[in-house]
């Protein structure tokens, strides 16, 4: 049980997908203007990550031992189909959220965090339960990074930022500072 807890914490803060591994930067840059939207994007991400983890475990367990060279191709097909399903569900259940997330919902297919999770899970040989904890941790980490970034950006909109720095340059520097802060968690695993 302690093992599972550390998998979750490690994926969430120590090896935060966005701030330490640079996965999922597109939504991190693109959907981080408003805290509310960032939270929902995080939620959608957690959902897709958990589904992906299940699907990757299933593929690894039952199908891929016969054809390991198809791993990447089958993963990406599964991720693309999952995102398609989530997109249709969100469109049906909450058209408002669908509009807010915009292009970043279908772009989740090419969100490195999702495919990255499947690959890391395979490389580390996680089982079903470990994989699920890993997925939830990674999703919470993404959400945390998104919400922190959105909060900072809401503040910078009201500050006197030089015209030159408005835009991605400033966002990247802020991300660097956040990443620096998250490096502090690395000490958690020294024992």
């Amino acid at each position, binding site marked *: 049980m302690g093992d599972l807890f550390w998998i979750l914490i490690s994926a969430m803060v120590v090896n935060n997908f966005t701030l330490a591994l640079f996965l999922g*930067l597109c939504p991190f*840059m693109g959907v981080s203007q408003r805290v509310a939207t960032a939270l929902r994007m995080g939620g959608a991400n957690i959902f897709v990550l958990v589904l992906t983890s299940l699907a990757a475990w299933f593929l690894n367990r039952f199908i891929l031992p016969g054809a390991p060279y198809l791993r*990447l191709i089958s993963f990406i097909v599964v991720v*693309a189909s999952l995102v398609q399903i989530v997109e249709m569900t969100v469109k049906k259940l909450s058209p408002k959220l669908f509009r807010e997330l915009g292009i970043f919902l279908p772009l989740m297919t090419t969100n490195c965090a999702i495919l*990255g999770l499947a690959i890391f899970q395979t490389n580390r040989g996680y089982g079903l339960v470990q994989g699920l904890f890993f997925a939830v941790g990674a999703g919470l980490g993404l959400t945390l990074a998104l919400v922190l970034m959105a909060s900072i950006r809401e503040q910078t909109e009201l500050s006197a930022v030089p015209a*030159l*720095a408005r*835009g*991605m*340059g400033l966002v990247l520097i802020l991300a660097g500072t956040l990443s620096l802060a998250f490096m502090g968690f690395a000490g958690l695993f020294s024992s």
Partner: protein
Amino acid sequence: MRATTAQQDLLRGIWRENPVLVQLLGLCPALAVTNTVANGIAMGLASFFVLVCSSILVSLLRHHIPAEVRITAYILIIATFVTLVDMLLAAIVPDIHTALGAFIALIVVNCMILGRQESFAAKRPVHRAALDAIGTGTGFMIAMILLSGVREVLGNGTFLGFPLFGPNFEPWIVMILPPGGFFTLGVLMLTLAWWTQRGVRRPQPRQWPHQVVSRDAATAAGGD
């Protein structure tokens, strides 16, 4: 889409529409593996290969791929070439393959590559698609070398492994750690913004109507 010449197709991606520095595509690999120049160049070459091969194949198949499943088809084509590169690197340069780790496989989800298929290769003849891919791939390579150069020189005091400074140099360790990636790209973007806006930022003199009219004279005199 406006018509472009072959030369424009080739040159556009290298600087003016540089995938990383201007369009902010493919940031994940650009930040994740640029802690040393060798890794940066390896990732640049791998992405270059995948981009050129997929663009050529997508362009060849452009009349046969149904519009409804085109994105899936592009991703499958890209994934095939990435699997190929993954195996090639593992066979030829195992060290670099280990250093890049999962990020080789993650070339599949590099938005830069999918973006070129959707917006260019799928609509153009093969030679144009190849030229565009070569240009964009080179642009990506330039960005990778810029980023990894800055990070390795400052963070480790070396370039491609050769020490640049004397033994008294204290490396800025943070530059080869994750925050350094964000900082380097951020500073690069600020520099680029300053460079592109350097003429515009000067306060413009107020223009009265008679001065607006006299602009014709200025244009005739060669100024604009």
